[in-house]
Protein backbone atom coordinates (compact mmCIF):
# COMPACT_ATOMS: atom_id res chain seq x y z
CA UNK A 1 0.00 0.00 0.00
CA UNK A 2 1.43 3.39 -1.00
CA UNK A 3 1.52 6.36 1.42
CA UNK A 4 0.72 4.07 4.33
CA UNK A 5 1.98 6.40 7.13
CA UNK A 6 -0.31 9.20 5.88
CA UNK A 7 -3.31 6.88 5.74
CA UNK A 8 -2.61 5.51 9.23
CA UNK A 9 -2.19 9.04 10.62
CA UNK A 10 -5.46 10.23 9.01
CA UNK A 11 -7.51 7.31 10.33
CA UNK A 12 -5.75 7.50 13.70
CA UNK A 13 -6.72 11.15 14.14
CA UNK A 14 -10.27 10.34 13.02
CA UNK A 15 -10.58 7.44 15.47
CA UNK A 16 -9.16 9.44 18.40
CA UNK A 17 -11.45 12.42 17.73
CA UNK A 18 -14.60 10.33 17.26
CA UNK A 19 -13.88 8.11 20.27
CA UNK A 20 -12.99 11.14 22.40
CA UNK A 21 -16.24 12.96 21.65
CA UNK A 22 -18.33 9.79 22.01
CA UNK A 23 -16.81 8.75 25.34
CA UNK A 24 -17.00 12.31 26.70
CA UNK A 25 -20.70 12.59 25.73
CA UNK A 26 -21.48 9.18 27.20
CA UNK A 27 -19.71 9.90 30.51
CA UNK A 28 -21.29 13.36 30.77
CA UNK A 29 -24.75 11.93 30.13
CA UNK A 30 -24.25 9.21 32.75
CA UNK A 31 -22.98 11.74 35.31
CA UNK A 32 -25.92 14.09 34.69
CA UNK A 33 -28.42 11.20 34.86
CA UNK A 34 -27.05 9.99 38.21
CA UNK A 35 -27.03 13.53 39.68
CA UNK A 36 -30.56 14.23 38.46
CA UNK A 37 -31.79 10.90 39.81
CA UNK A 38 -30.27 11.74 43.19
CA UNK A 39 -31.82 15.23 43.30
CA UNK A 40 -35.17 14.55 41.67
CA UNK A 41 -36.09 10.97 40.69
CA UNK A 42 -39.25 12.42 39.05
CA UNK A 43 -37.02 14.32 36.63
CA UNK A 44 -35.73 11.08 35.14
CA UNK A 45 -39.11 10.49 33.58
CA UNK A 46 -38.52 13.59 31.49
Amino acid sequence: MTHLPYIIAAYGIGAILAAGFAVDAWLRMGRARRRLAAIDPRGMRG
Partner: protein
Amino acid sequence: MVLGVDASAALAPPSRGGRNLHRFANPGRFLRLTGRVLPWLAGCSLVATAIGVVWGLCFSPPDWQQGDSVRIMYLHVPAALLAYIGYGSLALCSVASLVWRHPLADLAAVEIGPVGAGATFLCLATGSLWGKPMWGAWWVWDARLTSVLVLFFLYLGHVALVRAFDDPQRGYRAGAILALVGVVDLPVIKYSVDWWNTLHQSSSITLTGAPTMYVGILYPLIPCTLGLVAGFVAIVLARTRAAVMERRIRGLLQARARDEAAAA
Protein backbone atom coordinates in the same frame (compact mmCIF):
# COMPACT_ATOMS: atom_id res chain seq x y z
CA MET B 1 -41.85 21.53 48.40
CA VAL B 2 -38.53 21.82 46.64
CA LEU B 3 -38.51 18.45 44.95
CA GLY B 4 -41.96 19.15 43.64
CA VAL B 5 -40.66 22.03 41.54
CA ASP B 6 -41.10 21.28 37.84
CA ALA B 7 -37.57 21.74 36.57
CA SER B 8 -38.76 22.28 33.03
CA ALA B 9 -40.36 25.47 34.31
CA ALA B 10 -36.83 26.87 34.36
CA LEU B 11 -36.73 26.14 30.64
CA ALA B 12 -40.26 27.33 29.98
CA PRO B 13 -40.49 29.14 26.65
CA PRO B 14 -41.80 32.68 26.44
CA SER B 15 -45.42 33.08 25.48
CA ARG B 16 -44.79 34.90 22.22
CA GLY B 17 -44.29 33.48 18.69
CA GLY B 18 -43.05 30.07 17.63
CA ARG B 19 -45.36 28.15 19.94
CA ASN B 20 -45.50 25.10 17.70
CA LEU B 21 -41.72 24.93 17.61
CA HIS B 22 -41.62 25.08 21.37
CA ARG B 23 -44.27 22.40 21.71
CA PHE B 24 -42.17 19.99 19.67
CA ALA B 25 -38.96 20.88 21.46
CA ASN B 26 -40.13 20.72 25.04
CA PRO B 27 -37.09 19.62 27.12
CA GLY B 28 -38.99 16.75 28.76
CA ARG B 29 -40.20 15.52 25.38
CA PHE B 30 -36.70 15.96 23.99
CA LEU B 31 -35.25 13.75 26.74
CA ARG B 32 -37.85 11.03 26.15
CA LEU B 33 -37.45 11.11 22.37
CA THR B 34 -33.64 11.16 22.37
CA GLY B 35 -33.58 8.40 24.99
CA ARG B 36 -35.33 6.18 22.46
CA VAL B 37 -33.54 7.34 19.30
CA LEU B 38 -29.96 7.64 20.56
CA PRO B 39 -29.05 3.92 20.92
CA TRP B 40 -30.36 3.17 17.41
CA LEU B 41 -28.58 6.17 15.91
CA ALA B 42 -25.28 5.27 17.61
CA GLY B 43 -25.62 1.61 16.55
CA CYS B 44 -26.39 2.54 12.91
CA SER B 45 -23.45 4.96 12.92
CA LEU B 46 -21.02 2.30 14.18
CA VAL B 47 -22.20 -0.34 11.69
CA ALA B 48 -22.25 1.99 8.66
CA THR B 49 -18.87 3.54 9.50
CA ALA B 50 -17.29 0.11 10.06
CA ILE B 51 -18.64 -1.15 6.72
CA GLY B 52 -17.46 1.98 4.91
CA VAL B 53 -13.99 2.02 6.47
CA VAL B 54 -13.31 -1.71 5.91
CA TRP B 55 -14.66 -1.47 2.35
CA GLY B 56 -12.67 1.67 1.64
CA LEU B 57 -9.41 0.45 3.18
CA CYS B 58 -9.43 -3.20 2.11
CA PHE B 59 -11.66 -3.71 -0.92
CA SER B 60 -11.80 -0.49 -2.97
CA PRO B 61 -9.19 -0.05 -5.73
CA PRO B 62 -6.40 2.53 -5.49
CA ASP B 63 -6.69 5.58 -7.72
CA TRP B 64 -4.63 5.41 -10.91
CA GLN B 65 -3.04 8.79 -10.11
CA GLN B 66 -3.23 9.17 -6.32
CA GLY B 67 -2.51 5.55 -5.45
CA ASP B 68 -3.69 4.45 -2.01
CA SER B 69 -3.75 7.97 -0.59
CA VAL B 70 -7.22 8.24 -2.14
CA ARG B 71 -8.38 6.18 0.87
CA ILE B 72 -7.91 9.28 3.04
CA MET B 73 -10.88 10.70 1.11
CA TYR B 74 -13.24 8.27 2.91
CA LEU B 75 -12.62 10.33 6.03
CA HIS B 76 -11.87 13.73 4.50
CA VAL B 77 -15.07 14.11 2.47
CA PRO B 78 -17.50 13.18 5.30
CA ALA B 79 -15.53 15.43 7.69
CA ALA B 80 -15.83 18.34 5.24
CA LEU B 81 -19.56 17.68 4.88
CA LEU B 82 -19.98 17.55 8.67
CA ALA B 83 -18.04 20.79 9.13
CA TYR B 84 -20.38 22.39 6.61
CA ILE B 85 -23.75 21.05 7.76
CA GLY B 86 -22.65 21.38 11.39
CA TYR B 87 -22.21 25.11 10.91
CA GLY B 88 -25.50 25.28 9.00
CA SER B 89 -27.29 23.66 11.95
CA LEU B 90 -25.47 26.00 14.35
CA ALA B 91 -26.83 28.93 12.32
CA LEU B 92 -30.37 27.47 12.37
CA CYS B 93 -30.17 27.07 16.15
CA SER B 94 -28.97 30.68 16.35
CA VAL B 95 -32.02 31.86 14.38
CA ALA B 96 -34.30 29.88 16.71
CA SER B 97 -32.45 31.34 19.69
CA LEU B 98 -32.59 34.97 18.54
CA VAL B 99 -36.10 34.96 17.07
CA TRP B 100 -38.01 32.65 19.42
CA ARG B 101 -35.69 32.61 22.47
CA HIS B 102 -35.77 28.86 22.10
CA PRO B 103 -34.20 27.24 25.22
CA LEU B 104 -33.23 23.99 23.49
CA ALA B 105 -31.73 25.83 20.53
CA ASP B 106 -29.36 27.65 22.89
CA LEU B 107 -28.20 24.40 24.44
CA ALA B 108 -27.93 22.64 21.06
CA ALA B 109 -25.86 25.51 19.62
CA VAL B 110 -23.45 25.33 22.56
CA GLU B 111 -23.05 21.58 22.03
CA ILE B 112 -22.74 21.70 18.23
CA GLY B 113 -19.79 24.13 18.44
CA PRO B 114 -17.06 21.82 19.80
CA VAL B 115 -18.20 18.82 17.71
CA GLY B 116 -18.28 20.97 14.57
CA ALA B 117 -14.82 22.31 15.40
CA GLY B 118 -13.65 18.70 15.77
CA ALA B 119 -15.08 17.79 12.35
CA THR B 120 -13.46 20.85 10.76
CA PHE B 121 -10.13 20.02 12.38
CA LEU B 122 -10.43 16.45 11.03
CA CYS B 123 -11.18 17.84 7.57
CA LEU B 124 -8.12 20.11 7.69
CA ALA B 125 -5.84 17.43 9.18
CA THR B 126 -6.83 14.70 6.70
CA GLY B 127 -6.58 17.20 3.85
CA SER B 128 -3.09 18.10 4.99
CA LEU B 129 -2.12 14.42 5.26
CA TRP B 130 -3.39 13.91 1.72
CA GLY B 131 -1.77 17.11 0.43
CA LYS B 132 1.77 16.26 1.52
CA PRO B 133 2.21 13.18 -0.72
CA MET B 134 0.03 14.59 -3.54
CA TRP B 135 0.96 18.29 -3.69
CA GLY B 136 4.26 18.08 -1.87
CA ALA B 137 3.06 20.53 0.81
CA TRP B 138 1.22 20.18 4.11
CA TRP B 139 -0.57 23.46 3.53
CA VAL B 140 -1.15 26.02 0.77
CA TRP B 141 -3.05 29.31 1.06
CA ASP B 142 -5.59 28.09 -1.44
CA ALA B 143 -9.11 29.63 -1.37
CA ARG B 144 -10.81 26.38 -0.34
CA LEU B 145 -8.32 25.57 2.42
CA THR B 146 -8.26 29.11 3.73
CA SER B 147 -12.06 29.43 3.82
CA VAL B 148 -12.29 26.12 5.74
CA LEU B 149 -9.63 27.39 8.15
CA VAL B 150 -11.80 30.51 8.67
CA LEU B 151 -14.73 28.15 9.42
CA PHE B 152 -12.58 26.39 12.03
CA PHE B 153 -11.81 29.75 13.68
CA LEU B 154 -15.51 30.66 13.58
CA TYR B 155 -16.32 27.45 15.45
CA LEU B 156 -13.57 28.16 18.00
CA GLY B 157 -14.80 31.74 18.36
CA HIS B 158 -18.33 30.50 19.02
CA VAL B 159 -17.11 27.97 21.59
CA ALA B 160 -15.14 30.68 23.40
CA LEU B 161 -17.80 33.39 23.14
CA VAL B 162 -20.74 31.42 24.58
CA ARG B 163 -18.62 30.61 27.63
CA ALA B 164 -17.20 34.13 28.05
CA PHE B 165 -20.11 35.65 30.00
CA ASP B 166 -21.21 35.17 33.59
CA ASP B 167 -24.80 35.34 32.39
CA PRO B 168 -25.30 32.37 30.05
CA GLN B 169 -28.15 34.16 28.20
CA ARG B 170 -25.78 36.92 27.09
CA GLY B 171 -23.31 34.27 25.93
CA TYR B 172 -26.03 32.53 23.90
CA ARG B 173 -27.04 35.82 22.24
CA ALA B 174 -23.45 36.80 21.40
CA GLY B 175 -22.69 33.31 20.09
CA ALA B 176 -25.84 33.33 17.96
CA ILE B 177 -24.90 36.65 16.37
CA LEU B 178 -21.37 35.43 15.63
CA ALA B 179 -22.76 32.19 14.14
CA LEU B 180 -25.11 34.13 11.86
CA VAL B 181 -22.39 36.53 10.72
CA GLY B 182 -20.16 33.52 9.98
CA VAL B 183 -22.74 31.99 7.64
CA VAL B 184 -21.25 34.16 4.90
CA ASP B 185 -18.29 31.76 4.89
CA LEU B 186 -20.42 28.79 3.78
CA PRO B 187 -21.04 29.90 0.16
CA VAL B 188 -17.43 31.07 -0.01
CA ILE B 189 -16.30 27.52 0.91
CA LYS B 190 -18.75 25.92 -1.52
CA TYR B 191 -17.92 28.10 -4.52
CA SER B 192 -14.27 28.84 -3.75
CA VAL B 193 -13.16 26.20 -6.26
CA ASP B 194 -15.31 27.85 -8.96
CA TRP B 195 -14.64 31.52 -8.16
CA TRP B 196 -10.86 31.20 -7.92
CA ASN B 197 -8.14 29.07 -9.47
CA THR B 198 -7.45 26.67 -6.66
CA LEU B 199 -5.09 23.79 -6.13
CA HIS B 200 -7.97 22.00 -4.44
CA GLN B 201 -9.97 20.04 -6.98
CA SER B 202 -13.51 21.03 -7.89
CA SER B 203 -16.48 19.01 -6.61
CA SER B 204 -16.49 15.36 -7.74
CA ILE B 205 -20.05 14.82 -6.50
CA THR B 206 -22.83 17.31 -7.22
CA LEU B 207 -26.60 17.20 -6.83
CA THR B 208 -27.20 18.01 -10.49
CA GLY B 209 -24.60 15.97 -12.34
CA ALA B 210 -23.12 12.49 -12.43
CA PRO B 211 -20.15 11.90 -10.11
CA THR B 212 -16.78 12.34 -11.79
CA MET B 213 -15.04 9.60 -9.81
CA TYR B 214 -14.87 5.87 -10.46
CA VAL B 215 -17.85 4.08 -8.86
CA GLY B 216 -15.61 1.49 -7.20
CA ILE B 217 -14.07 4.36 -5.22
CA LEU B 218 -17.38 6.21 -4.81
CA TYR B 219 -19.46 3.39 -3.29
CA PRO B 220 -17.53 2.96 0.00
CA LEU B 221 -17.86 6.71 0.49
CA ILE B 222 -21.64 6.33 0.90
CA PRO B 223 -21.63 4.19 4.10
CA CYS B 224 -18.70 6.22 5.46
CA THR B 225 -20.64 9.47 4.97
CA LEU B 226 -23.93 8.10 6.33
CA GLY B 227 -22.17 6.54 9.33
CA LEU B 228 -20.21 9.65 10.23
CA VAL B 229 -23.23 11.95 9.79
CA ALA B 230 -25.26 9.63 12.07
CA GLY B 231 -22.36 9.63 14.55
CA PHE B 232 -22.19 13.43 14.50
CA VAL B 233 -25.94 13.70 15.14
CA ALA B 234 -25.75 11.07 17.91
CA ILE B 235 -22.88 12.87 19.67
CA VAL B 236 -24.63 16.26 19.44
CA LEU B 237 -27.90 14.73 20.73
CA ALA B 238 -26.08 13.01 23.61
CA ARG B 239 -24.29 16.24 24.56
CA THR B 240 -27.52 18.26 24.31
CA ARG B 241 -29.31 15.62 26.40
CA ALA B 242 -26.61 15.94 29.06
CA ALA B 243 -26.85 19.75 28.87
CA VAL B 244 -30.65 19.63 29.38
CA MET B 245 -30.22 17.43 32.46
CA GLU B 246 -27.41 19.65 33.80
CA ARG B 247 -29.62 22.72 33.37
CA ARG B 248 -32.44 20.93 35.12
CA ILE B 249 -30.09 20.09 38.01
CA ARG B 250 -29.01 23.75 38.27
CA GLY B 251 -32.66 24.86 38.27
CA LEU B 252 -33.58 22.41 41.03
CA LEU B 253 -30.58 23.35 43.18
CA GLN B 254 -31.36 27.06 42.80
CA ALA B 255 -35.02 26.44 43.72
CA ARG B 256 -33.91 24.42 46.73
CA ALA B 257 -31.53 27.20 47.84
CA ARG B 258 -34.31 29.79 47.46
CA ASP B 259 -36.73 27.69 49.53
CA GLU B 260 -34.13 27.17 52.23
CA ALA B 261 -33.38 30.91 52.32
CA ALA B 262 -37.10 31.71 52.56
CA ALA B 263 -37.60 29.18 55.36
CA ALA B 264 -34.62 30.50 57.35
